[in-house]
């Protein structure tokens, strides 16, 4: 069936709640909060007022869930893995930018 569908951009212009992020990522609330507290998953807000997240984080949280399931990692292991993956992503972006600047 051909039905044109809703397309949501996972970028900083869209915000998701803690509840949505739990549902979309497959992580448990305690795991997600531990990753937020360790700084591996960036969040806005505070434990009291509640957290909100850039929709970009959905990809990070889903990666965390895959790593948890496929490598049987606990949240400390996930936190280290996510930080390293984020560093790799940043470096790859920088390399791509430098390559784009180089003449062919």
């Amino acid at each position: 069936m051909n039905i044109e569908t809703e397309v949501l951009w996972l970028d900083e212009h869209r915000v998701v709640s803690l509840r949505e992020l739990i549902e979309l990522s497959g992580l448990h609330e305690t795991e997600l909060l531990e990753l937020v507290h360790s700084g591996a998953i960036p969040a806005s807000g505070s434990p009291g007022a509640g957290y909100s997240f850039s929709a970009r984080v959905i990809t990070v949280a889903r990666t965390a869930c895959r790593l948890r399931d496929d490598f049987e990692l606990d949240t400390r292991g996930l936190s280290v893995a996510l930080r390293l993956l984020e560093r790799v992503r940043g470096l790859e972006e920088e390399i791509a930018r430098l390559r784009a600047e180089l003449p062919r």
Partner: protein
Amino acid sequence: MKYADYYAALGVERGASADEIKKAYRRLAQKYHPDVSKEPGAEARFKEVAEAYQTLKDAGKRAAYDALGSRPPGEEFRPPPDWARQHGGAGSDHFSFEDVDFSDLFSSFGGARGAGRGGPLPGQDFEVPVELSLEDAFRGTTLSLSLSMPEYDASGQLRRTPHTVKARIAPGAVDGQRLRLPGKGGKGFRGGRDGDLYLDIALKSHRLYRSTGHDLFLDLPLAPWEAALGAVVEIPTLSGPVSLRVPAGTAAARKLRLGGRGLPKPGGGAGDLIAVAQIVVPAQIGDRERGLYQELAEASGFDPRRHFAAEGA
């Protein structure tokens, strides 16, 4: 269906212990997991490994798998008539294996027809890589994706079901952009929510432009006299040609920025188009040009390598 050799996928003997199977899986997962591996074909290889491990780590599923016997990988076969019933697979004696993919055969065990019997099961999420041309990313485009997704049938067995998903991609996608199409993944079972479809956008390389985020880089070849004297040149942009003033005395690698001529940003505005100056000379020149160059060489006091002498002396 086509037989898959799960022991070979993990590189273990058929009689391997549960511990040996786990160790083999961990070693291969570290090598091929798509989130950590950059090896070509890693994702497909990891799927094989994960599928094999999901079945062999579970004693019940492993017994059901072993009962199928050992066959050459890829051989067409059909499980024995009473196989599913004996191993707790099918909910009915009339269960059909038509259109069932081998990779989905064991996923259903302990899921729709096993431990989760009676409760709702959410549909699976899927991630699909999509390549867009720079022109499509600039203007926006409508994608028509033909996908084959495993979905639970009425008896709880997963079967591959074809889907066509049409999605309008607004202007401004960049390389690495992720998009979510809610409810367009696998269908939920017994009232479970439908899965989501995630698109992972990659931009195809372009004949002229190199993109980074919303900015575009373009090599701008200039003749020596254009670089020295300055010039107004026509530059191709994704929205049509524009005039660019090249200042007199433009050196190679100088970046000339055309604000807002890059890819549009979803929140408004656009990236820049950055023209990178290159000084080029013709491979062959005529007598008149040669004479003029010689005259220039004699008249000019310019030494482009003066700093060599200052440091080397």
